[in-house]
């Protein structure tokens, strides 16, 4: 975690964000002790941390756009769900096969999609997410359509399974931590610099010998890998999957988390995921209000705080000035 903190610090220290970090850590600790329904909220947040971290590599680092990463979560999640629930595989090989399947699909669609720009890229990725959704609905001999698949085995290797809520929480904290550390490692490496260079100026990157098309594809595959892992974690943690789990609202939710935390920053993914999951709305069982709240929150952030928590200090200063005047 040490390197994470230094990275956070190097990107200009943001007291507001540091306070929120502390609150997030305290929230995890409190939840672990108290247990109850908060644990489920945190499971959800940590799985989304993995998903959003991947999205951040493709969008925040590399400056590309994808509205369709839910497709890779769905492909991997469904593969793992079907293999474990219908064919009694172990979760580990099922999850690995799901990951491989998602990466293969990402490779096949990645090449043509990444040549597109602007709203064409946005729409193409959106279409990929919707196609996978349609397939999940229509292919009901395998996916059981809208009904979904239930009774999916919990995570585990062989006889060792992660059954209790607390054990799952520890496991997910470790996975989410690893995903953040690996993202931090990527950001500081030659690979990550190439990604950020592409976001800054594709022409300049090419003029320095960076094969932009290839690196965009690598970023796409890495982020699809995170999405796939998140998808598999989700179906095993919840024990259930349906097309709605990986629908369009998932995309909006993950963008809300990404923007709340601050797109392009490493810790933003975790911070955004925890804060958004912990919003009172998400405790309610009415899913309709949740999606409404996420959508509205995303619009508000885009308008008033486009850099997420990173813009809190600026807003704070502005507010103080207004009060003083």
């Amino acid at each position, binding site marked *: 975690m040490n390197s994470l903190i230094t990275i956070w610090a*190097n990107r200009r220290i943001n007291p507001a964000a540091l306070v929120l970090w502390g609150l997030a850590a305290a929230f995890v600790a409190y939840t672990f002790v108290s247990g109850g329904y908060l644990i489920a909220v945190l499971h959800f947040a940590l799985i989304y941390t993995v998903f959003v971290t991947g999205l951040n590599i493709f969008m925040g680092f590399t400056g590309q756009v994808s509205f369709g990463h839910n497709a890779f979560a769905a492909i991997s999640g469904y593969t793992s769900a079907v293999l474990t629930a219908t064919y009694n595989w172990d979760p580990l090989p099922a999850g690995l096969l799901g990951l491989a399947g998602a990466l293969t699909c990402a490779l096949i669609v990645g090449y043509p999609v990444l040549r597109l720009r602007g709203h064409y890229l946005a729409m193409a990725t959106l279409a990929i997410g919707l196609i996978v959704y349609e397939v999940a609905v229509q292919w009901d001999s395998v996916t059981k359509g809208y009904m979904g698949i239930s009774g999916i085995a919990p995570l585990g290797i062989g006889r060792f399974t992660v059954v209790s809520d607390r054990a799952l929480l520890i496991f997910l904290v470790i996975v989410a931590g690893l995903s953040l550390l*690996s993202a931090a*490692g*990527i950001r*500081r*490496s*030659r*690979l*990550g*610099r*190439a990604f*950020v*260079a592409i*976001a*800054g*100026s594709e*022409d*300049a*990157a*090419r*003029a*320095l*010998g*960076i*094969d*932009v098309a290839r690196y965009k594809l*690598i970023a796409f595959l*890495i982020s699809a890998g995170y999405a796939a892992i998140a998808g598999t974690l989700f179906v095993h943690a919840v024990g259930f999957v349906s097309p709605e789990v990986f629908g369009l609202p998932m995309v909006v939710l993950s963008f809300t988390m990404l923007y709340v935390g601050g797109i*392009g920053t490493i810790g933003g993914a975790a911070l955004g995921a925890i804060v958004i999951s912990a919003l009172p709305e998400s405790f309610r069982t009415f899913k309709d209000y949740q999606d409404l709240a996420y959508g509205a929150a995303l619009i508000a952030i885009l308008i008033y705080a486009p850099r997420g928590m990173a813009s809190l200090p600026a807003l704070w200063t502005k507010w103080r000035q207004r009060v003083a005047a």
Partner: protein
Amino acid sequence: MSVLRLDGITRRFGGLVALDDVSLTIPGKGLSAVIGPNGAGKTTLFNVISGFMPPSAGRVHFDGADITGLPPETIASRRLIRTFQLVQLFESLTVLENVKVGCHLHTRGGLLAALLPTRAARAEEAAVDAEARHLLDETGLGAQAETLAAVLPYGQKRLLEITRALAARPKLLLLDEPAAGLNRQETDTLATLLRSIVARDTAILLIEHDMSLVMQVADNIAVLDFGRLIATGSPDEVRRNPDVIAAYLGTDEAAHV
């Protein structure tokens, strides 16, 4: 010994001929310059050489090989490195990181090195770090290493772009109007830097508007006018060439010579 040879380069945009049968050799040592009035086709020439734009006709040879039509990243990998007329920095990277990106071509680390810092991976990163800091010290940006590139003052942004290009270890460095927007003092610093680069056996080809800089630093000059090459030679020869005087120096630019 020439490093770059252009044979009959022509580039059309619809009916407009931006470059008309330009043939030119650039020596592998020293500082060459292409000058010409606005719209003479200088930047188009750079775009054709560096692979950002294919020529309509003609061939480009670099370092003994035909590079016509190769993509920019492949041309860059042969150590022909360019900068841009409008500075193109990676603004969300630090100054140091910008230069490290310049080291992309002679480093290898991929996803594995990013995730598992093995001894080899750390050694490569340390070497890149040292190389980048050394270059920044040479160009006088060492103190700004940890600053975000976006917040540098304009003159230093220009310097950083050149430093970053040097990190790619060019055999030939193409500089597109490096003095544009610089004040007199900054231009002098730039001239010194360019001479020191040339002294280290890196050839430079620059496009420039600032005639005083060109006359001060260039070993040889080519003059473009309406896409055609109208003169080549040493600064003195070009200055005396009647075609050049008619086409270019006869205008108010002559006052700067």
